[in-house]
């Protein structure tokens, strides 16, 4: 056990803090253009993707430094930047599997927010079971023609490009028939419609692809290897960046609640006090779980099924805190209700996104504990 920070980590943190102090001094609007402006500001100081190679605007940062980066941005309450899907999902895929031409063409423009990317994976019929993808890409001459429907696409309405999974092969095992593409979202046949969630917000889109034509060099890596390629960035985004960011975001929400208690603006009941204490415990544990993630990656291990433990830790902590926030301020404060209720409603989704609770428990029991798979259907 050794959790001490070294000098390189401290220096990295100090430099970032100084940058953020200065950069966040001026007002940044909360809309998409504000997010793009913020990303350009970060990019100018190589703070968009510190874990990327320097040649594409990064700093070749270590995983410990990357964790510090995520934590500090969240703590400073920095806005989202516009191309987070591009940086966090498309970037790693292109770095690992893209051709030299693809890397040169896309990566710097992803970092600079000149191109905005989205991810075209989920489908209405393929939620927990992504091997059930129906969107098909058919080769006609040297042009891929794509038809299908994607859902839960963040930045679907603003994106220039989408990282697309589509079925290209038949007569093979379901997960072997999938390929990964760059999909130009300005191409004819693409229709992105806002998808309103139960909170009332439209943070996602549905993307309809109707005979969309993609050039031969839209294919990333080998035909039929899309399942593995598409998951490249996903594991890191879901297992590392997202939970680190959420850890800080939840901590800010909890600290605000504790502040309100301290100021007697919230007077919790005995049961609510114990709930709040459990939130303190939950976030402490989430932080430690994230620390262990970084430690494992730093030692060169793959995350593997550890990511499922992280996912469940996060969803429990998030839903518990969302409910606490709703309960502790209660209906006697109706004018304030919307904000609190939104966190509670939004975190209903925590047990659904990124693999449901049930899927994570399956993964853990089968792949980590070695319990038998369920019998196949007869």
């Amino acid at each position: 056990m050794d959790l001490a920070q070294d000098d390189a980590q401290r220096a990295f943190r100090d430099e970032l803090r100084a940058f953020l102090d200065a950069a966040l001094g001026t007002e940044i609007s909360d809309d998409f253009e504000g997010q793009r402006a913020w990303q350009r500001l970060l990019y100018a100081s190589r703070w968009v993707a510190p874990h990327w190679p320097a040649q594409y605007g990064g700093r070749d940062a270590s995983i410990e430094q990357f964790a510090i980066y995520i934590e500090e941005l969240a703590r400073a309450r920095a806005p989202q930047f516009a191309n987070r899907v591009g940086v966090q999902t498309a970037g790693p895929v292109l770095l690992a599997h893209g051709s030299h031409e693809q890397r040169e063409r896309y990566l710097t423009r992803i970092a600079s927010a000149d191109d905005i990317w989205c991810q075209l994976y989920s489908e209405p019929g393929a939620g927990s079971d992504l091997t059930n993808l129906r969107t098909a890409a058919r080769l006609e001459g040297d042009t891929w023609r794509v038809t299908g429907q994607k859902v839960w696409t963040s930045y679907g309405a603003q994106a220039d490009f989408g990282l697309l999974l589509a079925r290209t092969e038949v007569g093979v095992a379901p997960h072997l028939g999938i390929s990964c593409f760059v999909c130009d979202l300005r191409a004819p046949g693409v229709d992105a419609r806002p998808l309103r969630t139960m909170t009332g917000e439209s943070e996602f889109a549905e993307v309809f692809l109707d005979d969309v034509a993609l050039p031969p060099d839209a294919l990333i890596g080998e035909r039929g290897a899309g399942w593995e390629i598409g998951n490249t960035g996903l594991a890191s985004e879901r297992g590392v960046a997202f939970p680190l960011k959420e850890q800080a975001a939840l901590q800010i929400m909890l600290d605000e609640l504790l502040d309100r208690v301290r100021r007697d603006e919230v007077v919790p009941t005995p049961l609510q006090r114990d709930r709040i204490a459990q939130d303190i415990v939950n976030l402490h544990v989430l932080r430690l779980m994230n620390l262990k993630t970084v430690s494992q990656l730093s030692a060169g291990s793959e995350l593997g099924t550890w990511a499922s433990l992280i996912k469940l830790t996060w969803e429990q902590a998030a839903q518990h805190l969302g409910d606490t926030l709703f309960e502790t301020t209660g209906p006697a404060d109706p004018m304030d209700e919307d904000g609190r209720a939104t966190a509670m409603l939004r975190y209903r989704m925590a047990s659904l996104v990124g693999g449901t609770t049930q899927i994570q428990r399956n993964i853990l029991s089968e792949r980590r504990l070695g319990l038998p798979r369920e019998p196949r259907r007869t």
Partner: protein
Amino acid sequence: MHFGLSDDEEALRESVADFVLSQCPLATTRQLLDGPLGYDPAVWRRAGIEMGLTALTVPERHGGFGAAPVAVGVVLRELGRALGPLPFLSSAVLATTALLALADDEHQSDLLPSLAAGERRATVAIVDGHRPAAAIATSAVIGADAAISGTKVSVLDAEGAEIILVIAESDAGPVLYAVDPTAAGLRVDRENSLDLTRRQFRVTLDQTPGRPLGPANARGLARLVATASTALAIEQVGVAEAALDMAVDYAKLREQFGRPIGSFQAVKHLCADMLLQTEHASVAAFYALWVAGAEPAQLPVAARVAKTTCSDTAVAVTAANIQIHGGIGFTWEHNAHLYYRRAHGTAAMFGSPESHRSALYERLTSAAPQEDAWA
């Protein structure tokens, strides 16, 4: 001995269910979400004329049907099941009970027949906008036409009501007043509430005239809140039953990994737990309704047990319904969140589960038998 609906009660249930299904289906309710009232006054009129819902709770001597609490519960359960946006709870249950429990006879005779006939609609303003929630901060200068000042929150269906019954503190203790919504100094503002299918309002009174109807004594208030708790409990039963049905139907249809998700134990057992909780809610609420009519001495405990059980059930079952639906259940267009919102909205009204449990504990561990102090 029969723990379940009688033939008459079942017939009532079916006719109410048919009415709600044809007159206020959820698709229509969604269209009314942005409308002026959130419900269709014409449907409410028909509910009075065709179904007798406005007269159901009013005693026969005041021109109503004087239905037993179980029958009233049968209606509330169907409204809960369909999230039917009718002001039945606010006017026929809460306002009517407030008048019966707190108003003097002459005022009952004056007001109840018009409610029974559906000529007027009423609501009650009880909860004050400042903590502690239990204290009445709204004050009144006493007299034939009192001047009332204060802020009431979580007032149901206040927009468009013809009578607002306000409980305010006077020199002589708390009093129930009838206030005209057009009276001077009165403002009605819609709250930004979680529950989308039942509107809540903030009612601000500034030297507003009101007619005193009777003293809001502890016994009468206890009856009002016990009745309200029981009414909300049985409505929550309908909410939970609807969410359970939705979840089970979807689990049979939706396939993942080549089989219906309802064939996976994780989903099956979640549904079984939802069923168990819903049954608990159902027996608790129906028992409270029955004792409200037959053995009122049991009501204080039964109503609190019902409200805490049904609130916990409704919140848990509607949340599980979203989980079973997966992504689609998280969309605005799906009805799952409307039930979840209603469940949370009703859980917080007339005492949280914790507050009811706390009162049960106090009642059953106090040295002397006590009057139940309703928060």
